[in-house]
């Protein structure tokens, strides 16, 4: 019996070791950027991205693509997140797999941080130049000071080719054309190697003689002053003078070589131009809203009034970049990312055309696995359990009206 027990113990130990070893070699691709782990209320109640377009799915190294669209800055911005008075239009990619060749808000280049107004809608565009081959999840993103990164929808883009062929040519104001990928590299290596060698020379000057044990004995016995000779002092002085002379001299020659230099540019860009969205003639009141946990469905009771002059139907509910569509009214033709698109996810109890002047109370259900996959259901664990989103109404001619909704959300666990 003991032999069997020993064998089992040994085999178990070997199995454990093999498991650990196998685990070390298991390195799956990390392909997300934490977009799903960001608090749901942050994604639902801050920046609403819509009309997004990724110009290409596949792009070769050195070629460009754009991400364009609009974002609405939610007027009911949560108190727990700093307002977007200092924000930066970023792009959510795993490092510089693209370079950001340009980014614009309302037609203005935004290489720096900007100030955004609550309740406004802005048009944006980001121009990307492919740099590193691979499959990359490319997200829209707005960084907000005091709020953190607010990540928007992402789409997979494949970059083909070789990074070795990537060039980033820039012409300076002094007329020189350089490749920013490799510019100044030899100069950096030279000066660092030079100073490192000088530092090593100083170290070598001392290390060549006996160091710790005999010197400690000498210091302990009161003979510390005998350890530094006059010659040592001369050499040290030489090092100091040479150091200062090289610093001064190299600074002088650098200034001669680069007579035109400017300080780093910084500062907040204000006055971003919002787009004037057509005044909505549809008013919506949220009577109640609940999220049914087992059914992965959000249900709302809305009282909708059409104050316009043409009948409208509800076609889309958009929250946190997830689009719930009523296919009878709207079908996506923009190749929006599949995982964020619930093509048949919107059910309206009565979605017949709402006539001008008519008021109707309707039950709306937005259901899709995206609630769970994108962890939007976690809203019920957030400090501010309210939801927000965009409703899009369409008339018979396809004219669109956008209505913002914002209300408390009550979870239902049964």
């Amino acid at each position, binding site marked *: 019996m003991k032999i069997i027990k020993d064998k089992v113990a040994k085999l178990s130990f070997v199995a454990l070791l093999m498991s650990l070893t196998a685990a070390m070699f298991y390195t799956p691709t990390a392909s997300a950027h934490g977009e799903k782990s960001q608090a749901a209320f942050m994604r639902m109640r801050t920046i609403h991205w819509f009309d997004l377009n990724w110009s290409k799915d596949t792009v070769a190294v050195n070629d460009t693509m754009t991400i364009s669209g609009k974002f609405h800055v939610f007027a009911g911005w949560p108190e727990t997140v700093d307002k977007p008075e200092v924000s930066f239009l970023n792009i959510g990619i795993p*490092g510089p797999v693209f370079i950001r060749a340009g980014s614009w808000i309302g037609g203005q280049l935004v290489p720096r941080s900007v100030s955004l107004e609550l309740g406004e809608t802005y048009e944006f565009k980001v121009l990307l130049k492919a740099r590193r081959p691979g499959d990359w999840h490319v997200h829209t993103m707005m960084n907000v000071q005091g709020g953190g990164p607010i990540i928007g929808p992402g789409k997979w883009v494949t970059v083909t080719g070789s990074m070795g062929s990537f060039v980033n040519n820039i012409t300076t104001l002094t007329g020189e054309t350089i490749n920013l990928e490799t510019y100044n590299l030899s100069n950096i290596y030279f000066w660092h190697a030079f100073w490192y060698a000088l530092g090593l020379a100083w170290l070598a000057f001392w290390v060549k003689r006996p160091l710790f044990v005999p010197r400690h004995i000498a210091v302990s016995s009161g003979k510390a002053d005998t350890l530094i000779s006059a010659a040592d002092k001369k050499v040290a002085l030489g090092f100091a003078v040479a150091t200062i002379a090289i610093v001064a001299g190299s600074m002088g020659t650098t200034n001669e070589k680069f007579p035109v230099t400017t300080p780093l540019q910084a500062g907040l860009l204000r006055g971003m131009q919002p787009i004037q969205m057509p005044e909505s003639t549809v008013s919506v009141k949220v009577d109640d809203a609940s999220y049914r946990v087992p059914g992965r469905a959000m249900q709302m009771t809305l009282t909708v009034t059409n104050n316009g002059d043409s009948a409208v139907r509800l076609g889309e509910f958009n929250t946190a970049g997830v689009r719930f569509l009523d296919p009878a009214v709207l079908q996506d033709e923009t190749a929006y990312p599949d995982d964020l698109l619930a093509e048949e996810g919107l059910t309206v109890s009565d979605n017949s055309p709402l006539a001008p002047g008519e008021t109707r109370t309707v039950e709306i259900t937005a259901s899709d696995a995206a609630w769970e996959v994108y962890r939007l259901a976690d809203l019920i664990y957030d400090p501010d359990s309210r939801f927000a989103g965009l409703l899009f109404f369409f008339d018979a001619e396809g004219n669109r009206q956008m209505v913002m909704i914002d209300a408390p959300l009550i979870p239902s666990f049964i």
Partner: protein
Amino acid sequence: MSASQSAVRSRAEAVQVSRTFDWMILFTVFTAVLGGYHIHYMLTGGDWDFWTDWKDRRLWVTVAPIVSITFPAAVQACLWYRYRLPFGAVVSVLALMLGEWINRYLNFWGWTYFPVNFCFPSNLIPGAIVLDVVLMLSSSLTATAVIGGLAYGLLFYPGNWPIIAPLHVPVEYNGMMMTLADLQGYHYVRTGTPEYIRMVEKGTLRTFGKDVAPVSAFFSGFVSIIIYFLWHFFGRWFSKTDFVDSSNV
């Protein structure tokens, strides 16, 4: 061999053992300082040292020497007062820079593909050499702090200027003027480092016009003096020998 007998049997053997100890201790000091100093500098100097678009003429000049004179002061205190060895600052900075280059090359470039010309470390060696020489020639804590600390701050910017000046050449980009360093920061996307985090060109030194770097360097030198004193005593405390009464053990 009993405990009271010597481990060596001749003077030659003693010298050999002593030299072996030298290399072992030097290697240990170098790697321990590399680790500790590197973490300290990344936490306190961080982005100012990581990116060219943070290396400005105000805050980088001010912050980098102040937070980097720490370990040199402490290691100097240990090596000078216990061994009369005046290379504490240089050995610390050499260790730091080796660690930084390994990190920048293997991590920043090798893993995440930021170009090395965008994420190279600052050069701290000129100030370290002068700091060691001042300590050796003066053999005085006060003189080293005041003269060496000030020199450490003053030499930082000119010691780095030949490396960063080419990146301060201006460029016109889509209707805006920026430096090549700014353009690097814009081009090479850092998802977790938005532009507003950059602490550059902030402050109230506006009356000095474009000649603000020397003022910042002097200020940095003055604060470096204070930090030198503080970290010198950390070094003294860390390297002291305490004897414990055997009856209490």
